[in-house]
């Protein structure tokens, strides 16, 4: 099977998966979630007005029609308007995506590259003092909660030392750069621990394989073995780890966005959950599901490129 047929077939799988996702969303929001009319009408709601608003929202229609609305929105990406803010959801997502991406993409790229470099070094000096210190440092970094980094960064680096903006965001390049520097650094520090530990394990798994012993027996240098053979063979788990995280980058980092006043998608999602704003939560869920599926396909295709043993079936 060629790569195009495979990709198209995998993309067709998106349809039943999305139908399932829509069903789960529908069940969760119709059976579990609170009545949105209360949230929308505020503290002076009357029973008559609640009935009116339920009618306006179409919540008194049959379950099938309500489910069909969700399915339609998943395929057309027309999510309607927010119940809470009355804003158009597609526009809300467009407005929020860029600020989220300006933090998450550079931070994710930087943390991945730095973690890969560190783990290669660690693999090279495995078992030694350097390796042990890095592992201890990673565990230490992971043990500190994200909030502590944020509070420390904002108070010491931004407020006391004046190196960064305390908070805020400006749209457009390069205006946004000073505002995303500190959040990006914190993101990198937060990611580096788990990333290095994962990549180190992957590298060490490879380093004890038979082919490495063969390579050494052939007299190849340790650098060639590490960079040419081990890294290439370790690419499958690395790609899985990296690509599968990409869809979540668009959702932003909730805590970072909230503390640094970045108007990204993380804040939109949180506000929507808190105010039972079903259309927005539905949009974000559908969007995540679609992105997850698409990037799963990309991961599978990339496998065949980095490892010829993987065949498309």
């Amino acid at each position, binding site marked *: 099977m060629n790569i195009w047929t495979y990709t198209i077939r995998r993309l067709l799988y998106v349809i039943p998966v999305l139908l399932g996702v829509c069903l789960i969303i529908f069940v969760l929001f119709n059976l579990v979630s609170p009545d949105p009319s209360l949230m929308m009408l505020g503290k002076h709601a009357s029973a008559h007005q609640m009935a009116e608003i339920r009618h306006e929202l179409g919540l008194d229609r049959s379950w099938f029609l309500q489910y069909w609305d969700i399915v339609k929105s998943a395929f057309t990406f027309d999510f309607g308007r927010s119940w809470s803010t*009355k804003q158009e959801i597609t526009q809300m997502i467009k*407005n929020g995506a860029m600020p989220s991406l300006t933090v998450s993409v550079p931070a994710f790229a930087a943390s991945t590259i730095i973690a890969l470099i560190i783990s290669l070094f660690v693999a090279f000096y495995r078992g030694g003092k350097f390796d042990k210190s890095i592992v201890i440092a990673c565990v230490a970094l992971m043990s500190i909660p994200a909030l502590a980094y944020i509070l420390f960064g904002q108070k010491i680096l931004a407020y006391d030392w*004046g190196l960064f903006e*305390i908070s805020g965001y400006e749209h457009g390049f390069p205006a946004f750069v*000073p505002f995303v520097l500190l959040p990006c650094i914190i993101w990198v520090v937060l990611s580096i621990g788990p990333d290095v530990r994962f990549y180190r394990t992957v590298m060490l798994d490879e380093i004890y394989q038979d082919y490495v012993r063969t390579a050494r027996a052939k007299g190849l240098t340790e650098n060639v073995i590490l960079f040419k053979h081990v890294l290439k063979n370790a690419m499958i788990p690395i790609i899985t780890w990296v690509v599968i995280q990409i869809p979540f980058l668009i959702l932003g980092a909730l805590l970072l966005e909230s503390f640094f006043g970045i108007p990204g998608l993380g804040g939109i999602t949180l506000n929507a959950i808190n105010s039972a704003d079903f259309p927005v939560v539905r949009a974000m869920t559908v969007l995540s599901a679609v992105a997850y599926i698409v990037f799963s396909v990309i991961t599978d295709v990339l496998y065949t490129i980095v490892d010829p043993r993987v065949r498309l079936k």
Partner: protein
Amino acid sequence: MKTMNFVLALLLVLSLLSCTKKVDVNEKVLNLVVSAKVKGMDPISSDDRYSSNEVARVYEGLLEYHYLKRPYTLVPNLAEALPEVSSDGLTYIFKIRKGVLFHDDAAFPEGKGRELTAEDFVYSLKRLADPKLQSVGWWVLDGKIKGLNEWRKKYADLPAVDYKEEVEGLKAVDRYTLKFVLARSFPQFLYSLAMPFTFAVAQEVVDHYGKEFINHPVGTGPFVLPKFEQTNKIVYTKNPKFRAKLYPSEATDEFKELGYLQDAGKQLPLVDKVVVNILEEDQPRWLNFQKGNLDYVAIPKDNFDTAVTPSKGLAEDLAKKGIKLLISPSLDVTYTAFNHENKLFSNLKLRRAMSLAYDVNKSNELFYNSNALPAQSVIPPGIAGYMPDFKNPWRGPDLEQAKKLLAEAGYPAGKGLPEITFDCPSSTISRQMGEYLKSQMEQIGVHLKVVQNPWPDLQKKINNKTVMLYGIAWGADYPDAENFLQLLYGPNKTPGANGSNYDNPEYNKLFESAVVMQDGPERTALYEKLNRMAADQAPWIYGVHRQSFVLHHSWLRNYFSSDFDQGQAQYLNVDLEKKAEMLKKL
């Protein structure tokens, strides 16, 4: 070459690092902060304080509260004068100011804002009643204006609403005269005309933008916002065509003494620009204020001890920076409500026993840094009906009396009493408050189970009457005791504002007599009677009336904290010389 590239990249990063924004001291800019996202700029959707404050920078209403008078006093804003009121209290005639212009906008011919007329108010109020728009502010007109409920009902099931159809109680008599006829006497009606829900919008702007009207605010107000975007910052500029409106020359003594008349007689607004920053977390708000990036800030709970001394003074290090502290009482009440539809709580002695077991002073110390005022009943200080010397006989702590009453209620030492569920919101502070209440009740043998709920879930439980006991607060919509007393009025049971479902015929009758009366000693006496009844019957365990603690920089003039601060930005001023001087100290 590679080394060169690296050095260049490093220099770029360092140059960006050094570009941290400097505070501009050449333009009169107000730097404000809000702690939640602003939903939009449609007056009829401005039900939360954040949105209504933003709406009131651009839009205006017939009336407003005098900026420097207490108790709160209504004065004309877009109206020329206070209305003529008929002797039966049912007809109100307003004269509209002439020559008031809407902001320039593409929706008007040649982009020039036209003159405001009485018809704009007729349209704006019908819009609030429009069944297709489902405004959260409909309650302010519901049942008040003759024929308006019928108009709303008629179009609820029709495909489109006809705004041209006349409503008997809402008419533009001529270009500048507006006449209201009320369905029943309701003196509080005037307060609704100072609320952003009833502010004037232009029909052609609404029609031009359709559903996007929410993002295109075009009013007559002191500031202009060409387009609203739901982001982290909103920037308003001074309305160059704002009518002649002057800073007040009169003030009550408290304001005079504090020098709030420095700008008396000056044309409003006093600043060129208003920048509203949206920061949801306490720390960035606090740090930005201390850096001078914000003009004022409410003191976050965690920073309270470092900012305020035990004697309620300002900490020395902040005072040296010229920062000022303002303490103002809020028109609100916190309480733990019994669900009176639950048979258990029809037992008056049980309610009183639980009220007596609760140590409100300790709770004030734990949760409000001892800065709140323990509530004796439902009406807060600052409005007619509040009795400063009144002591609620069932206000705790009095454990001996509580135990005695519990035994008399049929539950000696809590025996035979089922476990009572206390529902609260899901924040940490709510959990702590719940645990505190639980420990207080344990002292007399009443066992509580604390259940946390996301806010929508808690609302659902209250609405479905499945709660037993729950913690909540109420902030005033307008400065009249009716707004608090209605919380215990039987016909207002859930889903109305009376979430505790208290229904006492005697109270209801008295309330109905009071609300139709004009302000005066007779009505105040009735409010006081209702307030005493609300204390005696222990329908809730009363909490506190809170106070706000706000810091502001010395360069910000005319600022104070208020429950009704919509439109405040036009009265604020920035002393640029002082700002330049004080910023060096920060």
